[in-house]
């Protein structure tokens, strides 16, 4: 039984601004998260991801702008929207003196719409789904970072949700946990749940998400389907050869920009040459030109721009947090 696809976005904002004092942490963003997508919300530290999420969910109030979540205006419709939204915001928060089960029972009791008759069952179910069944009776004080993170995810899954908002869900998780989260997100999305997930782990976003939005210093610098975003970046060729200089010469003659390949772990003692900017050039024509000039080509690859390159080009190389 599949939800009929609704055309209105799961999350939509217009000119959303949130200021802390004089500084804008979120500076007029127009976010559109289509229903049924897995939307990766990317951005460097301090770019305003968590702040955006807080404002979307009514924890903080916006200075200006319109927000709608699941088709309803926020924060006016908070009480009717939030029961359909599962959220993990800036890490988990739990009572250390209660057990995992006790914590979830309490948070579920806080929701007036959650039926108490199925509470225990739903809590056990959610714990099971994040692999915490065996630690359910343990006090959260004795949980590890990753266990707390899993408990936070379980809290988001306490009831069937239309929208999941996960702020760095894999923070502190072991590789198994990370994989579990990935497959959990995929299966939830397959069932029609919209997932809005913030992260800086680009590899993870590439594997998990269908759409991405990129934040930089409070602004949304790009958003759209993942493939479109990647296609906007430049493809490049990678040539493995012992004749580095000659290859670079040929590439630049063809109009490509030669450069050092990152991580030159090439086989057969060769060096790799990177050529970017192959607009309309057929790869086989490049190989033919290289060979014709006597370059010993031992490996040749055409690579699409990675999300990482695109991310860096959008948000800048600088390592320092914009403060």
């Amino acid at each position, binding site marked *: 039984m599949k*939800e009929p696809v609704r055309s209105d976005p799961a999350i939509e904002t217009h000119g959303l601004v949130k200021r802390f004092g004089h500084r804008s942490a979120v500076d007029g963003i127009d976010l559109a998260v289509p229903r049924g997508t897995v939307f990766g919300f990317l951005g460097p530290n301090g770019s305003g991801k968590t702040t955006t999420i807080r404002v979307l969910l*009514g924890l903080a109030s916006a200075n200006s702008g319109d927000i709608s979540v699941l088709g309803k205006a926020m924060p006016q419709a908070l009480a009717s929207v939030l029961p359909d939204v599962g959220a993990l*915001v800036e890490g988990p*928060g739990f*009572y*250390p003196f209660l057990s995992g089960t006790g914590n979830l029972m309490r948070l579920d009791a806080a929701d007036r719409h959650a039926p108490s008759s199925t509470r225990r069952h739903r809590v056990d179910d959610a714990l099971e789904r994040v692999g915490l069944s065996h630690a359910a009776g343990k006090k959260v004080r004795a949980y590890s970072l990753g266990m707390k993170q899993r408990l936070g995810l379980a809290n988001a899954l306490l009831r*069937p949700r239309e929208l999941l908002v996960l702020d760095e869900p894999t923070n502190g998780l072991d590789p198994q946990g990370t994989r579990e989260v990935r497959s959990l997100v995929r299966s939830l999305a397959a*069932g029609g749940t919209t997932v809005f997930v913030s992260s800086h782990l680009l590899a993870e976003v590439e594997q998990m998400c269908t759409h991405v939005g990129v934040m930089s210093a409070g602004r949304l610098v790009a958003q759209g389907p993942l493939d479109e975003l990647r296609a906007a970046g430049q493809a490049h060729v990678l040539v493995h050869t012992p004749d580095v200089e000659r290859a670079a010469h040929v590439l630049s003659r063809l109009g490509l920009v030669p450069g050092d390949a990152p991580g030159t772990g090439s086989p057969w003692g060769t060096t790799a040459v990177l050529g970017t900017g192959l607009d309309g050039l057929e790869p086989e024509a490049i190989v033919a030109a290289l060979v014709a000039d006597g370059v010993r080509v031992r490996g040749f690859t055409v690579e699409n721009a990675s999300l990482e390159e695109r991310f860096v080009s959008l948000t800048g190389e600088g390592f320092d947090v914009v403060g």
Partner: protein
Amino acid sequence: MSAETAASRNAGAPRQGKGWALLGSELSVLFRRLRTWAMLTALAAVPILIAVAVKLSSRPTTPGRGPLFLDRITQNGLFVAVTALVVCVPLFLPLTVGVVAGDTIAGEANLGTLRYLLLAPAGRIRLLLVKYAGAVAFCCAATATVTASGALAGVVLFPVGPVTLLSGDTISVGESAWRSLLIAAYITVSLLGLSAIGLLISTFTDVPVGAMAATIVFSVVSQVLDNLPQLEWLHPWLFSHHWLGFADLLRQPVSWTSFGDNAILQAGYIAVCGALAYAKFSNKDVLS
């Protein structure tokens, strides 16, 4: 995979629920905390210490010295509870109530659970009401603990019999138990204004210890001001003004004037602090 029916199931589910579950959960969390039990145990120890000290000391207590009613304990064990309450009112009770009331919102913010309660969604007003109800429940538990422990210590260590009241009348043991409960109720009501102040302070900070300390400081300052004759005009407005005014309940017949005055004063504090707490909390950015 159960998520596929997410939306449909939610839409089909009746949107009812009385919302009492949160209050139940609040009380169970409050009374399952070690801290709560430590404070109640300390309060229970006060009457026992008083009773044992009076029992062991050979000198008869001079009437008029020491806390109210101390001199009567040796003649009648029923006075232990009342004496203990008198001893606890200025400091011990405000201290424990300050800890619980100051912790209400700030404690949740500090643990990070405030945002998840609000996302559940608990509703800001509802959460504030439930938190205050929890503090009130603690006030009841605190005075009940002192009264019960005092009654027990009195019955075990001293003779028990009809009690002579301040008005000179004598009442039965059963009647005097009833009067002890009245006094406990009076003191519980006395603490409600302080609880509301604690709740208000708690909405302003994410640091529970700060809110607790500020609440306790308020109770001390109020009592100090109440003792300065120069500030006579201010006295009726201080929330601690009627704290020790329960002597009326030990007359025959019971005079309810001070009980009523106290209740009105505390209700005023609840209304003002409650409104301010609501104004603050309903607009607060939860960034913890």
